[in-house]
């Protein structure tokens, strides 16, 4: 009787030790370093999900790069949706704070991005629920920077931070490291 109790107690202790070590480390890694997510929708075509509903891309989301909220124009980022806090949306950063953007379909023709905010747009204009609908978003909603496509294997690639030339800000206060007149 004493022997079987010893076995159960030892097993229970080992389980607790593993649980309290493995779970917090895994959760912290997924929250702070990197995680993986499937992209749904057509708002970022043709960069993401070019096949529509047949095949959804799976992207690598890098939290560590945005821990200080530093993003560049052209980055593809995921953020908490301002209209629905349960959902995350993935869009491209078009303008940083202080820039003046020419909007597509927004109620104002030109918008100056306030301090601490960014302007995001999907690549598929017209089929995208982005800053043209809800205005500039606060940097506090930034979730991660999408760096690579991991699945399907024929679409393995590093996502480049390019800004389409027609979407360059009309006037920018901050100079970024890549591409800006």
């Amino acid at each position, binding site marked *: 009787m004493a022997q079987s109790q010893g076995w159960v107690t030892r097993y229970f202790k080992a389980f607790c030790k593993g649980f*309290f*070590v493995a*779970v*917090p*480390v895994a*959760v*912290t*890694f997924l*929250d*702070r370093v990197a995680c993986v997510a499937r992209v749904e929708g057509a708002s970022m075509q043709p960069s993401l999900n070019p096949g529509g509903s047949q095949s959804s891309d799976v992207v690598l989301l890098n939290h560590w790069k945005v*821990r*200080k*909220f530093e993003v560049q124009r052209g980055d593809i980022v995921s953020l*908490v*949706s*301002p*209209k*629905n*806090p*349960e959902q995350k949306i993935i869009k491209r950063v078009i303008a940083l704070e202080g820039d003046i953007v020419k909007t597509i379909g927004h109620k104002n023709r030109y918008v100056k991005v*306030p*301090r*601490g*905010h960014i302007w995001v747009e999907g690549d598929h204009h017209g089929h995208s629920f982005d800053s043209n609908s809800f205005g500039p*978003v*606060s*940097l*506090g*909603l*930034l979730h991660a920077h999408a760096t690579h496509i991991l699945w399907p294997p024929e679409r393995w690639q590093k996502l480049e931070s390019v800004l389409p030339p027609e979407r360059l800000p009309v006037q920018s206060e901050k100079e970024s490291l890549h591409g800006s007149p």
Partner: protein
Amino acid sequence: MSFMKLKAISILLTVINFINNNNKKSGDQGPWWQSLHRTMLRGILGKTFRLVGYTIQYACIAHCAFEYVGGVVMCSGPSMEPTIQNSDIVCAENLSRHFYGIQRGDIVIAKSPSDPKSNICKRVIGLEGDKILTSRPSDFFKSHNYVPTGHVWLEGDNLQNSTDSRYYGPVPYGLIRGRIFFKKSCS
């Protein structure tokens, strides 16, 4: 809670654990060069790995606690007087935010909309869909607005001395960090 604070707490706990472990005596018999070899290699290398391992473990547990359960915060500023005075210690819990249980009248901690690295501490006056008086105190004509979906309207209790939603507009729900449920006055 910033990541630097987590690292500091975890290093402190690791050092305490380390000192405790070292106080246990270990009797090693054998030739002097053998015990020296054992001490040097297994001792230092093993202890370093264990130190790093414990640090990572405590940092991760601290992160999970602050992110999903709650923590202790010090508030500064006059915008919530007389409810919360300057340099009061408050306890915030994060469960309401994850289960979307924030109500009107709750005092919440949120990321500042204009500076994501700093936090603000205000009261929730309106949830999405509510009709809010949005005119500034100095305006003569009162104006009303509806709080858009996915946003909340925050105001400080000290209305004369508070920069809140009356100045920067409704705040997205995603910026809320936690709800304050306990205050200990320190002044």
